[in-house]
């Protein structure tokens, strides 16, 4: 009973102190809330990237990804990308002929010049690929013809001049289905190649996070002058339902040891590994956010103790226990932690909406920031120990205060 009475009294004094110093209290809550936000938002971005990546891979309808290494930028070359799969059509056809494979489609990325008029040019990513049921067409149709220009590697078949663009390209160029645009690896090549827009699809730009145009692989190779070695960035493989991705991947790798074959999850891991520095930076920011919150609380509480050291020493001289005075500081830290945590979590929700809107507008990715309940709970949970640990230094200072100090001023 005596302990409860003491705890209530200590709580009352702690709350009174917080109410009395409103500005300081408000600033401390904001500081802790910012630390919580760094956890929830950066954690949400990391989680969103992984989950979005997984969903995109799942939605792609592909099971395996055959590459010759990461796609490298090649400045000074037409197209700007160094694609690493050689003889892509024939390798893809060989893989496609396997009984457990439903389809193997080579795909290349190149930077291309595009223009609706031939006067002003935009550089965007050109995707050379066939399209299938996994490609979502929001307006118009799929390609009407196959990749006939390849013509068994002679590149003498007719050019279909069909192109599918993504909604952002449509907005950028102010064009739509039925319009024509110029596309080429150089401006002169582009002026010689006019394509008709047959459909609008967000599928590839969702992967790439940038405006893109999609045309048949051989036609992309033709307009970027890369037909000689039939290069592609990768070959995507769809399997029959009863096939094991791991087993087929091993078999293809044995046949083509110069290439790497990854399942969806392995491809996502490889993508994330290439972004290790970025992910580490995000993680560091979370840690720094928590440390900043901890330091802020410590600084605040130490300041309070320093400011009131004479009064606290006087109370010690009057017989107050150190534990009572430390309790007053801890109660303040606890309340600041809880309030800062609640404000941080509450602010997370509208900020997530804002960030997702910005991401969808700027790069086309939707729901990039994801904050499941456990992440919000983690943000709240981290605020309280952060605040309490930050106040330990202040508690230690109180313990060191000598009661005689009250008589020295």
């Amino acid at each position, binding site marked *: 009973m005596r302990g409860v009475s003491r705890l209530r009294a200590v709580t009352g004094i702690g709350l009174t102190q917080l109410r009395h110093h409103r500005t300081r209290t408000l600033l401390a809550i904001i500081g802790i809330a910012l630390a919580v936000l760094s956890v929830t938002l950066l954690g949400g971005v990391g989680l969103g990237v992984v989950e979005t990546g997984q969903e995109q891979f799942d939605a792609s309808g592909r099971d395996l990804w055959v590459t010759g290494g990461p796609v490298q930028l090649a400045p000074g070359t037409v197209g700007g990308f160094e694609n690493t799969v050689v003889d892509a059509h024939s390798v893809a056809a060989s893989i496609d002929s396997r009984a457990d494979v439903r389809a193997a489609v080579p795909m290349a990325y190149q930077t291309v010049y595009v223009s609706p008029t031939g006067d002003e040019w935009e550089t965007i990513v050109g995707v050379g690929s066939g399209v299938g049921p996994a490609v979502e067409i929001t307006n118009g149709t799929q390609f009407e013809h196959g990749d006939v220009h390849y013509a068994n590697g002679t590149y003498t078949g007719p050019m279909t001049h069909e192109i599918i663009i993504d909604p952002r390209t449509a907005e950028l160029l102010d064009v739509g289905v039925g319009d024509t645009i110029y596309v080429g690896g150089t401006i002169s090549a582009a002026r010689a190649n006019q394509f008709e827009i047959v459909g609008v699809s967000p599928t590839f730009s969702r992967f790439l996070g940038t405006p893109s145009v999609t045309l048949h692989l051989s036609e992309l190779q033709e307009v970027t002058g890369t037909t000689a070695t039939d290069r592609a960035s990768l070959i995507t493989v769809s399997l029959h339902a009863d096939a094991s991705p791991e087993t087929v991947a091993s078999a293809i790798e044995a046949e083509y040891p110069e290439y790497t074959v990854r399942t969806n999850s392995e491809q996502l891991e490889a993508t994330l590994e290439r972004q290790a520095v970025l992910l580490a930076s995000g993680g560091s920011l979370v840690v720094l956010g928590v440390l900043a919150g901890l330091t802020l609380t410590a600084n605040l509480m130490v300041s309070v103790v320093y400011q009131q050291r004479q*009064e606290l020493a006087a109370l010690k*001289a009057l017989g107050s226990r150190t534990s009572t005075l430390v309790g007053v500081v801890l109660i303040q830290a606890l309340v600041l932690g809880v309030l800062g945590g609640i404000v941080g979590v509450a602010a997370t929700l509208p900020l997530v909406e804002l960030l997702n809107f910005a991401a969808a507008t700027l790069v086309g990715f939707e729901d990039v920031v994801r904050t499941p309940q456990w992440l919000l709970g983690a943000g709240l949970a981290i605020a309280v120990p952060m605040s309490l640990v930050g106040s330990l230094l202040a508690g230690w200072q109180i313990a060191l205060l000598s009661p005689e100090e009250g*008589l020295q001023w």
Partner: protein
Amino acid sequence: MNDSPVVECTDVVRTYARGSTGRLFSRQPGTSVTAVDAVSMAVQRGELVGLAGPSGSGKSTLLHLLAALETPDSGHVQITGVDTTSMGERGRTAIRRDHVGIVFQRFHLLPSLTALQNVALPMIEQGKGKRSRRRRARSLLEDVGLGDRLSHRPAALSGGEQQRVAVARALGGNPDLVIADEPTGELDSTASEAVLDLLADVATDHAVVVASHDPMAIDRMDRVLRLRDGKLTNGQTQ
């Protein structure tokens, strides 16, 4: 009146190191100074005793020893018959809580708390419930003439009023001994007079020791002990 002294010290000596920086690896040798040198004195309940002397004479050190804030290097200090000399910090804290009230020169009231809350604060340690603490604090503030200032914070009170709150706070634990260190040092003459009146009232049923430079305060004491260089110059009293 009970003849046994509330506080009594016998041949107490307190020496401090002076000149040493106290820092690790410091090469500066410290010298020592004897702040209190073989002082013996006693104060009975109902006495208002003054400690007078120039700065550095040992008044504050003697007050610390009497209040069990420090322990002497030699000699003994007894409060209500209990020898505090060999007690640790925890034991002396308990002695202060139960037997000693202290009034500080600069009041040292918590600025965020009202007068009532400041007076009630040290009573937390006595295990009193909230109502009991508030009732006692209200009664003490009424006794010191601040019944109409209960909900005022220190910033809204004059210096004299703050010191009266501090006196009420010192009396919260119903102590046997009240120690006041320069209680009028921050006050004008009118406020000083009021605080000295109050301490004289307190001394009717407590032992009160006041250290002061203020001649007006010294004149109000029942008995004055003068210190110079750590020694009592007007004789030791038992």
